[in-house]
C-alpha cells in the first residue's frame, strides 16, 4: 500500500519492498475482489435457508476480523468482545424504536457509540495484562448485560425489545433475506479490508510489536497506549456495526442473546483455529467453523456441539498456532509434521 512506502519500516528495507513481486503485492486484493464477485453471483443460486446460513458465515467473518485486531495483532485476549455487539444491537434498537431514527443512521451511530465505549473502557482496562485483561473484559460484558436487563423502560429488560419492521411504525422497511445477505457481505468485506490495511500498515506493525514485547515497543517510540486503545476502538466499531445489523435482522432482541459469552468464545475459537494475527486466518476460521457447525447441526442434531468440542480439542492440540500460521511456517522450514507441533508445547 502507498502508506507502507512512506512508513519508516519500508524506508529501512527498501530492497525488500522493491523485490516484492506484483503478484505478492496485489494478488490478495485481486483475490478479495474475485471472492466478493463470486459471493454476489452465489446469491442467485441459493435457497432462502441457505442464504441465511451464508449470511451468518459473513457475520462471523466480520466478528472474527474485529476480534483479531485486538486479540490477534495486539495479543490482548478480549473475553468481552460481545459487549460491542450488544451495545451496537441495543443502540440501533433503542434509536429505531424510541427516537424513530432510520436504520442506516442508527447503524453508523451504533458503530461510533461502540468505538467510543471501547476508547473509554480501553484506557483503564488495557493496562491489565494476560488473564486479568480477559476477565476484566468478561466482567464488563456481563455487567453491561445486567445494566441492559435492568432498564426495562428503555430496553424492554429481560422481555426483549421489538424493532418494528413493517408499516408506518417502521422507520426503515425490513431488508429481507436478500438485503441482509448483501449487508452482511458488505460488513465482512469491510472487516477484511480493514484487517488487510492494518496488517500492511505502520499501525499494524506497532500492534504486532506490542504483542511481541510491549516494553521494547514503547522504548522504540511507539505510543503503546494510543495504539492499544485505537485497536480496541476499531475492533469495537466493526463489532458494533455487526451487532446493529444482527439486531435489525432478528427484529426481536434479548439481553441474553446479544450479550452471550458464546458469541465471544466463537470469535476467539475462529481466530485461533484459523491463525491469529493474520488476515486470512480469521476469514478461514470463521468460514470453516461456521460451515462445519451448521453441517453438524443439520446432520447430528443432538450431538453436534459434542462433535464440535472434539474437533476443537484435536485442532488445538495438533495445530496450536492456527492453520494459516502452520502452513506458512511449514512452507518456510519444510517441516510438515504435526507431531513437531505437539512437541513444542507439551510438558
Amino acid at each position, binding site marked *: 500500500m502507498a502508506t507502507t512506502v512512506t512508513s519508516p519500516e519500508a524506508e529501512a528495507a527498501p530492497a525488500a519492498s522493491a523485490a516484492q513481486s506484483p503478484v505478492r503485492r496485489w494478488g490478495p486484493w485481486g483475490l478479495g475482489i474475485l471472492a466478493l464477485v463470486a459471493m454476489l453471483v452465489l446469491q442467485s443460486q441459493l435457497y432462502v435457508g441457505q442464504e441465511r446460513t451464508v449470511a451468518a458465515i459473513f457475520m462471523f467473518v466480520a466478528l472474527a476480523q474485529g476480534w483479531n485486531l485486538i486479540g490477534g495483532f495486539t495479543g490482548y485476549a478480549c473475553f468481552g468482545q460481545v459487549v460491542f455487539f450488544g451495545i451496537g444491537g441495543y443502540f440501533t434498537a433503542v434509536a429505531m424504536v424510541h427516537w424513530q431514527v432510520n436504520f442506516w443512521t442508527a447503524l453508523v451511530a451504533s458503530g461510533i457509540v461502540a468505538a467510543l465505549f471501547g476508547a473509554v473502557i480501553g484506557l483503564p482496562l488495557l493496562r491489565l495484562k494476560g488473564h486479568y485483561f480477559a476477565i476484566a473484559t468478561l466482567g464488563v460484558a456481563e*455487567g453491561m448485560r445486567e445494566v441492559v436487563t435492568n432498564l426495562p423502560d428503555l430496553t424492554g429488560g429481560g422481555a426483549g425489545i421489538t424493532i418494528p419492521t413493517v408499516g408506518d411504525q417502521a422507520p426503515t422497511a425490513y431488508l429481507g433475506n436478500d438485503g441482509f445477505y448483501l449487508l452482511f457481505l458488505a460488513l465482512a468485506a469491510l472487516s477484511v479490508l480493514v484487517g488487510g490495511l492494518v496488517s500492511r500498515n505502520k499501525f499494524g506493525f506497532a500492534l504486532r510489536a506490542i504483542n511481541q514485547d510491549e516494553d521494547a515497543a514503547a522504548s522504540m517510540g511507539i505510543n503503546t497506549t494510543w495504539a492499544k486503545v485505537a485497536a480496541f476502538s476499531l475492533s469495537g466499531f466493526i463489532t458494533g456495526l455487526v451487532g446493529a445489523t444482527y439486531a435489525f435482522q432478528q427484529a426481536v432482541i434479548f439481553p441474553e442473546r446479544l450479550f452471550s459469552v458464546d458469541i465471544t468464545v466463537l470469535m476467539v475459537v475462529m481466530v*485461533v483455529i484459523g491463525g491469529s494475527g493474520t488476515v486470512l486466518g480469521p476469514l478461514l476460521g470463521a468460514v470453516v467453523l461456521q460451515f462445519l457447525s451448521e453441517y453438524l447441526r443439520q446432520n447430528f442434531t443432538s450431538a453436534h456441539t459434542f462433535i464440535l468440542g472434539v474437533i476443537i480439542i484435536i485442532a488445538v492440540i495438533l495445530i496450536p498456532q492456527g492453520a494459516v500460521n502452520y502452513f506458512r511456517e511449514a512452507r518456510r522450514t519444510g517441516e510438515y509434521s504435526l507431531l513437531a507441533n505437539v512437541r*513444542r508445547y507439551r*510438558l
Partner: protein
Amino acid sequence: MTPFLQAALYGLLQGGLLALIAVGFSLVWGVMNVVNLAHGSFVILGAYVGWEMNTKLGWDPFLAMFVSAAVLFALGYLIQRFVINLVINGPIFITLLLTFGLDLLIVQGMNIVFSGNYRSIHTGYASTGLDLGSVRVPVGRLLAFGVAVLLTVALVYLVSRTRVGTSIMATGMDRGAARLMGIRSRHVYALTFGIAAALAAVAGVMVGTVGTFSPAAAAGYTLLSFVIAVLGGLGNMYGALLGGLVIGLVDSLAGLYLPGTWVNALAFLVLVVVLIFRPSGLVGRAYYSARVEV
C-alpha cells in the same frame, strides 16, 4: 432486623458453597496458569454422579460425595495427563480454547445422557430447619457449608504441610527448579487438576442436595469461579474462601435491598474495579505473581 439476619446467614451459607466451587479453579489457575473453562461442567457432572448414587443405590448424598469425588478425580487426572499437558506450554489462548472444547463436550455429553431437565438430590433432612431465636437455619445448607469449609481448610493443610502439597506448590512457583529437585511435573500437574475436579464434584453434590441443577447451569458456575478466584487472589486458598463468603453475602443482602438483578451488575462492577486497582486480589499478594516462568 430479622430479615437482615436471615439474609446474612443465608448468604454466608451459600458463600461457603461458592467458595468450594471456586477453590479448585483457583488452585489450577495459580499452579498451572490454566483457566479451566470446563470447571462448571465438572461441578454439574459431580452432581449427576451423586444423583445416580442416590437414586439407583439409595445412598445418602454425604456418602455419595466420596464416590463422586473419586470419579471426578480420576477423570481430571486423565484429562490433564493426556490432553491438557500436550499444550500447556502454549500461549494462554491455547489452554482456554482446549478447556472450552472440553466444556462443550462434557455439557453436551451430559445433555445426551441425562437430558436437560432440572434435577435435585433428595434427602429426608435437607429441607428441615433449626430455629435459632428469630432466624431459621436450613439443615441441608448448614451441612453443605460445613463440608465446604472443612474441605477448604483440608486443602490448605494438604498444600502447606504434606509432601504432595509442597511439590504442587513448588511446581507452581518454579517448574524448572522443581523438576531439577526430582518432582515429576507431569504427574503433579495431573494430581492438581484431579484434586480441583474432585472438589468441584463434592461442591456439585452439595448444590444438588440444597437446590437444583442441569447441564445449562455449568457456564454460570465457571463464571462465578472466575469472580471469586480473582477477588480472593489466584492460587490463594483462604482467599477463595473469603471471596466466596463475600460474594454470597453481597448477593444475598443486595437481593434484599436492591430491585431486580442490579446486584449482578454490582458484582461485576466490583470485579472490574478490584482488577483495575488491585489485580492480585483482595487478600495480600497472590503467590502466582512471584512465579518464575519456564
